[in-house]
């Protein structure tokens, strides 16, 4: 119920006046002497409860009479069908309407039933509502899925144009989130001062849409209780299943890159199918890859689907394809696209030690070896390790980097090799005076004696290279060292130590030479002097530093993304190239690479996207065309595929079979001041009758 003249509601407390008068001005009773109260007492106590109830009832009736009178002056408007039937239709009121239509384009709106999809029913409902609007009314509309899409909301009285635009649109591939769209709508309506405000959510009340906002609109910013919110409601389909994800042996689930294996072998692909129903089913599955198709059947026992495994031969290069299950009410989530990519050529790293202690647990060489064997980021590297004497005959130029572990044992060995190209990473041991002299002469620096002091790794916010590495889940500042070599150097420090107040350059010192790069790690990796190697952040920190030294883009590339996500591609060369991207629907777009990287954001359509460089502009000497692909899938993780609708959405439900009736009932209202007056009169009448009752009946 709303009020056209709500200022009168301020007088509502006046309706409590009878109670106040009763309490403040209670009559003082006369005292009379009476022979004996034994009969009176009996009668009085027998009727006491009734007398009290009657008294308070009279008081209540007086209050209610006043309340209804004040309510009548406030011109209340109700939107119940009962009142519309009772009072003439021209008594609709509430001022001109200001309606914001929010049209859901999430992929659950593609769910089909009764010969149309949910989006079709939405369009029909919105069109009916738009048709019912009057000349003074205004409407705005916006599409949304996980956020409000398209242009800003704007008022319009050209309802036919709005209808046309909504009709010409279609659902996308994103999930639902009501929070962002509703907050925008509330914000937009808050600027409007006149008229009755309405938000029409043309959505399926999808359960996953309430993940962020919960089932409580009042928690949204700019929430206004005077704004009427209404939305469509759909039943859950009887049969619904979807391919939740696939998993392939030898393929990294996150990146879609090969982990190992050689081309020409077979790869096993497992499908994981889920269902929102509980009836037994047998699902036909098909996998298409390289122009060939394979078939299988997944059996659903009422709880789980059997996992179906397909064996696909690897023929080198990228492996693209799709897995398809039988169609149901929502066919889109019964397809899963995959695109597995061959990784770039691995960079060779050589680890050399002179003292065997270095590769025992607790020492630097051991930790370096463990990192390369166990950590995911190491997949782009290939580590070889050998004792110093064996390494003498090795050509360092064949390695991207050489790590010398425990400098004191080298005694000037490899000095001639160090002038060659490549990266040399020098790690001192715990007691390292000879080694340090060698390093001093190599690096052209001056080191003081080792300092024993508790210092911590200082976060590197100055070098933008490290921004692309996500250290948010690690506490960099808790990595400590108890002993290090203070350095006086003209060279750049990549990382520094700090005790919280003073910075101590440097943890890693970088010297660029004509032949290559020298890195000096001024602390030891002995556990006795540093806990660095056993901290979780160490792997991240080590590989990011290695990538920095080798000028690599170390960030993981994903070949399989969700609809709407940005695809990050990488080229082998770093010069600018024009890249043509062909979407699954055949549309082509172009982007330019920068520093060997490119991004593509128009990924609303699910399927396999193919990209290639334009040979003439690729910048490669051979003008060869570089090409690749990636797969875009629906994001099933939010629960959108469940197609479950919220039984009690925080808005008025609009029946999809007769949306106009429900819309008008909710949007318009009937002025019911007459009814308030009648109720007031009834209360007065009841008060009069009660007041004049003789309380005869027992």
């Amino acid at each position, binding site marked *: 119920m709303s009020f056209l003249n709500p200022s009168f509601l301020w007088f509502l407390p006046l309706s409590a006046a009878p109670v106040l008068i009763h309490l403040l001005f209670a*009559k003082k009773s006369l005292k009379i*002497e009476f*022979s004996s109260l034994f*009969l009176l007492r009996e009668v009085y106590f027998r009727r006491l409860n009734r007398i009290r109830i009657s008294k308070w009832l009279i008081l209540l009736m007086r209050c209610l009479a006043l309340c209804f009178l004040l309510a009548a002056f406030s011109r209340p408007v109700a939107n119940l069908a009962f009142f519309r039937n009772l009072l003439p239709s021209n008594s609709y009121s509430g001022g001109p309407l200001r309606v914001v239509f929010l049209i859901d384009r999430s992929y659950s709106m593609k769910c089909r039933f009764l010969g149309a999809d949910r989006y079709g029913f939405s369009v029909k409902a919105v069109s009916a509502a738009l048709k019912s609007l009057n000349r003074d009314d205004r409407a705005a509309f916006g599409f949304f899925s996980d956020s409000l899409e398209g242009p800003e909301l704007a008022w319009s009285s050209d309802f036919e144009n709005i209808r046309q635009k909504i009709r010409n649109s279609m659902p996308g591939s994103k999930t639902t989130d009501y929070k962002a769209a509703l907050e925008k709508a509330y914000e937009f309506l808050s600027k409007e001062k006149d008229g009755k405000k309405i938000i029409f959510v043309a959505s399926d009340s999808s359960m996953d849409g309430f993940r962020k906002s919960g089932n409580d609109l009042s928690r949204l910013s700019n929430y206004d209780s005077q704004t009427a919110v209404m939305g469509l409601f759909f039943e859950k389909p009887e049969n619904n299943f979807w391919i939740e994800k696939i998993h392939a042996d030898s393929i990294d689930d996150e990146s879609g890159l090969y982990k190992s294996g050689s081309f020409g072998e077979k790869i096993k692909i497992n499908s994981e199918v889920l269902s929102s129903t509980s009836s037994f089913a047998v699902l036909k599955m098909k996998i298409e890859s390289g122009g060939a198709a394979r078939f299988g059947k997944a059996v659903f026992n009422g709880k789980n689907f059997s996992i179906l495994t397909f064996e696909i031969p690897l023929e080198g290069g990228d492996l693209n394809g799709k897995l398809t299950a039988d169609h149901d009410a929502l066919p889109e989530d019964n397809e899963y696209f995959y695109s597995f990519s061959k990784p770039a050529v691995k960079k060779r790293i050589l680890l050399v030690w002179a003292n065997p202690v270095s590769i025992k647990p607790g020492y630097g060489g051991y930790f370096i070896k463990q990192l390369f064997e166990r950590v995911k980021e190491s997949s782009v590297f290939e580590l070889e390790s050998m004792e110093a004497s064996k390494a003498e005959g090795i050509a360092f130029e064949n390695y991207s980097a050489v790590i010398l572990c425990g400098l004191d044992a080298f005694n000037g060995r490899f000095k001639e090799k160090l002038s060659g190209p490549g990266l040399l990473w020098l790690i001192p041991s715990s007691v390292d005076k000879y080694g340090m002299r060698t390093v001093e002469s190599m690096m052209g620096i001056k080191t003081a004696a080792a300092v024993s002091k508790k210092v911590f790794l200082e976060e590197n916010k100055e070098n933008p290279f490290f921004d692309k590495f996500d250290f948010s889940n690690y506490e960099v500042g808790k990595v400590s060292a108890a002993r290090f070599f203070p350095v006086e150097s003209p060279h750049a420090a990549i990382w520094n130590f700090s005790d919280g107040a003073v910075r101590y350059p440097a943890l890693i010192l970088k010297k660029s030479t004509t032949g290559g790069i020298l890195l000096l790690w001024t602390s030891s990796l002995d556990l006795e002097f540093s806990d660095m190697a056993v901290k979780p952040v160490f792997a991240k920190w080590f590989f990011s530093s290695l990538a920095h030294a080798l000028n690599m883009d170390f960030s993981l590339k994903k070949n399989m993304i969700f609809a709407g996500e940005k695809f990050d591609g990488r080229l082998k060369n770093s010069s600018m190239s024009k890249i043509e991207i062909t979407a699954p629907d055949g549309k082509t777009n172009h982007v330019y690479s920068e520093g060997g990287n490119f991004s593509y954001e128009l990924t609303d359509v699910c399927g396999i996207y193919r990209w290639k460089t334009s040979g003439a502009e690729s910048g490669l000497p051979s003008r060869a065309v570089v090409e690749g692909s990636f797969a875009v899938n629906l994001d099933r993780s939010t629960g959108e595929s469940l197609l479950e609708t919220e039984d009690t959405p925080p808005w008025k439900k609009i029946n999809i079979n007769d949306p106009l009736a429900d819309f008008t009932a909710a949007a318009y209202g009937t002025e019911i001041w007459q009814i308030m007056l009648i109720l007031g009169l009834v209360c007065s009448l009841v008060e009069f009758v009660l007041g004049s009752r003789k309380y005869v009946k027992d």
Partner: protein
Amino acid sequence: MKFIDDATLARIKSFKYSGLNVNSESLLSGEHPSRSRKGISQEFAEYRHYAIGDDTRFIDWKVYAKRDRLFIKEFIEEKAAVIHFLADASGSMNFKGSGAAFSKWEYSARLLMSLACLCFIKGDYCGLYCMSGSLNREIPPGASLKHAAFFDSVLEKTNPSGDSIPLEDLKLYVSKMEKNSVLVVFSDLMFESEKIASISAIIGTKKIRTYVFHVIDGFEKDIPWKGPLTFLDMETNVEMPIVPDYVRDSYNAEFSKWLKLCKTLYTTPRTRYFPAFTDMRIDGIIEKFITLT
């Protein structure tokens, strides 16, 4: 006298009253027949066989002549009746509705005095007992009209107060009464039905003739006041706020039930019940009393 004037006395004397229909067992000679039939009077009682020692004056020689057997002729002995007036002097008897000329006590006193005078005139012996929870005043039975002056004096000096007739006192008083004496009670009977029944039972044990005058003020019946009032109980001084309008009808019904109960309990072969509203003529009540006795 305060409670009876000469005009009333004259009117009472004019009543054709043959006296209370009682068989008096008192030692005082008077107008009422005694259970003992050996008395000296004009009224024949019966014949009986002569026994040695009988007074030969009472032998009926005519019967002897006819039957040849000696018979003694016996006559009903006439003795004076002893009438006990019991006045309820509880606080409630002080009540006087604004429409009444007298309080219940005054009205009772007037009625009592009238009846007493009526009895004195017939030569009956009358005693008075004013009884309440806080006072007891007694005048032993006497027969002369001068005794009536004592009655009047005591009634005038009595200021009703306290609870209604204490049962123990009543029991004692009744136990001291001769058989076949008369008890005349003046009370408003303003107490619970149990007590009303107890009084009835106490009187019934002695098998004496009893007349109960139930003195009521019209305002007690109608509670005609308006608006919220605080009622003060004249016997217990308890206060109770009541709006008479809210309870009047129920109270009237309850009052009628109570009157009916009193009437039922005090109407027995030996007990007569007389409702006496203070706005009723005293002469009328006495006439009714004479008619029923």
